[in-house]
């Protein structure tokens, strides 16, 4: 078997066991996913991290170049033959979509057979086309068929799975009722609001009774208000779904609200995994730190002190709507470099002791700013220069440049009092008790 390097995980295991490897000219996705029945996992990551590619591979819209997908004990994709590997590497499936996506007929098998390595698997490869996988997908733009009414959209799946016209419609009507759209069955997708279309798409995916549910940025296309309601409802349906579910999102709030577990991916690989609490409290990448609004630094802990890596200048969460003029702040920043910045390692002092490589994180709200050096101050005090001021909720988020790049949240009143504007020099302090230190 060519998949000898893979741990053999087939058989009775319920849920999803996947090792997704997709090679595509310059980009490589290499992601291991285990999702238990009833569990919802969020794939969280920036654009281009490979989230959607992972989803497409699971759905069978893209072929794996390595690894495997096993759902409830049945292998859905396990490339073995050289042909497959080259095909996927060339990325043909990306351009051509499903009709040309299928590998040669020889390795195609009906999923109904349910066995692992059959007669057609002599080369160790196996491929189940998307229409034979029991996977429901809610696409990012929902992709409701524009020529069909809402009820026919939902009935589409059940019809393909062998239900008669009336039965499929009855089932679809029931599903529309469950998402609260019983009265909208006769509407075309164009006549539905964004939130309604999202719910129809969810009903359509669930109506096929999928063993695995995939949601690609399910709330991204909605406005803030609709998003709130839809998120709560989506959460209810995800909880009700008995199989594994995967939500792809770049929105940490969606991920935290919808999922039991987060898998953070960057550049095609998982960089952090865990429940919402551990991921947000102890971010391990700049991306997550920025998402959850933490200043994050990597360094070496020596007791209560953390000596920060000089190469890492810190990830600082930003807000929206820049007030400062970028070019103006750049010139002042140049002038700043020449003056009184202390060189050498930057040391943070935390209350919890630790030894070895560590992350240090603190929220922008814990940073206090002063026009002069404060007396009897906390131990973490440094001089910084304001490089930008952004609106952040009711407060202002101040980007600080200097030995320690950081973000600080201040009230508009305080900002006015401190005359915070790009180029302005201030003193920043953080209490030791506000700094979280954890092993890297």
């Amino acid at each position: 078997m060519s998949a000898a390097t893979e741990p053999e995980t087939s058989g009775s295991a319920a849920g999803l066991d996947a090792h997704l490897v997709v090679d595509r000219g310059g980009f490589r996705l290499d992601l291991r996913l285990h999702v238990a029945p009833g569990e919802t996992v969020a794939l969280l990551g920036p654009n281009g991290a490979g989230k959607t590619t992972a989803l497409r591979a699971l759905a069978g819209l893209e072929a794996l170049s390595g690894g495997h997908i096993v759902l409830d004990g049945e292998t859905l994709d396990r490339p073995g033959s050289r042909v497959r590997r080259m095909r996927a590497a060339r990325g043909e499936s990306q351009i051509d979509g499903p009709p040309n996506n299928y590998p040669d007929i020889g390795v195609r098998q009906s999923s109904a057979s349910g066995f692992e390595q059959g007669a057609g698997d002599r080369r160790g490869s196996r491929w189940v086309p998307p229409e034979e996988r029991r996977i429901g997908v809610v696409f990012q733009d929902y992709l409701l068929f524009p020529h069909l009414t809402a009820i026919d959209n939902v009935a589409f799946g059940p019809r393909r799975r062998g239900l008669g016209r009336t039965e499929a419609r009855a089932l679809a009507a029931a599903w529309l009722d469950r998402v609260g759209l019983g009265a909208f069955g006769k509407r075309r997708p164009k006549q539905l609001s964004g939130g309604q279309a999202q719910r129809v798409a969810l009903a359509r995916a669930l109506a096929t009774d999928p063993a695995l549910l995939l949601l690609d940025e399910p709330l991204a296309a909605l406005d803030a208000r609709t998003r709130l309601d839809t998120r709560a409802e989506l959460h209810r349906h995800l909880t009700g779904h008995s199989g594994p579910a995967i939500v792809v999102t770049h929105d940490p709030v969606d991920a935290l609200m919808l999922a039991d577990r987060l898998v953070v991916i960057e550049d095609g690989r998982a960089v952090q995994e865990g429940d919402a609490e551990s991921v947000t409290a102890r971010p391990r990448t700049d991306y997550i730190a920025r998402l959850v609004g933490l200043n994050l630094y990597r360094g070496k802990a020596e007791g209560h002190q953390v000596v920060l890596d000089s190469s890492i200048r810190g990830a600082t969460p930003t807000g929206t709507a820049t007030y400062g003029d970028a070019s103006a702040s750049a010139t002042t920043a140049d002038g700043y470099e020449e003056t009184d910045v202390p060189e050498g390692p930057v040391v943070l002092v935390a209350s919890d002791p630790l030894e070895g490589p560590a992350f240090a994180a603190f929220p922008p709200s814990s940073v206090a700013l002063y026009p002069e050096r404060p007396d009897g101050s906390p131990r973490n005090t440094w001089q910084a220069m304001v490089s930008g001021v952004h609106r952040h909720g009711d407060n202002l988020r101040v980007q600080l440049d200097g030995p320690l790049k950081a973000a600080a949240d201040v009230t508009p009143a305080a900002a006015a009092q401190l005359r915070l504007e790009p180029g302005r020099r201030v003193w920043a302090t953080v209490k030791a008790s506000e700094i979280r230190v954890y092993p890297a």
Partner: protein
Amino acid sequence: MPAKRIRRRRVPAALLAPALIGLAFLILPLAGLLARAPWTELPARLAEPEMLAALRLSLFTATAATVLSLLFGVPIAWLLARGEFPGRSVLRALVTVPLVLPPVVGGVALLLVFGRSGIIGAWLYERFDLTIPFSTAAVVLAMTFVSMPFLVVSVEGALRGADIRFEEAAATLGAGRWTVFTRVTLPMVAPGVLAGAVLCWARALGEFGATITFAGNFPGRTQTMPLAVYLALQSDPEAAIVLSLILLAVSVIVLASLRERWTAAP
């Protein structure tokens, strides 16, 4: 007033003059046709048996050619738009050759293949005692040959413009390739198919060169309206005008039905 000055920008005379001449050239012949039309005798002339025969034959053959083009052209378009095989661009070029080929040449080519001594024609004659040239079937074949590319090009364009992700969504819902095509792809490109069919039908209706070469000019059997117009012009110019009026009316109707897609200014 500044607003008025912006709106009324002068058109350079060097552009305006040729444009007007060109417009006159395009419009005047049609106006002439309308001016010379024997409006009072029109109903009577339309009821003449030869006229009716040509009209009936034209409508029948053009429709048959359109049906044939749909049956074979849509799959060709799908192959060109979705297929992944070597030589696809060559195939696309070949398919569109009849668009630019002089129809007479097409007629000659058809004659060489389907004629009694042609590759397929000889076999048809020996096996089934079938002779295609100079029959109504030949008219349909000639029309299909010249008009199918219009349908293929139109449908291929629609298929390329269609979002393939809908087909992917259908696949995840359990639809096999054929079901995806009939239930999702085809309904979504229906406007393109319709436009292609209308265009194809109009082209078939106006077909002259390939028809007269391959099918001849037998009244009631192969004499379609364009052929009748040409013949009538030598003996009975008024009949030619009446027939031309009908063809003009059809063209205008076709144009009107396609206006959304073709003549709507961007």
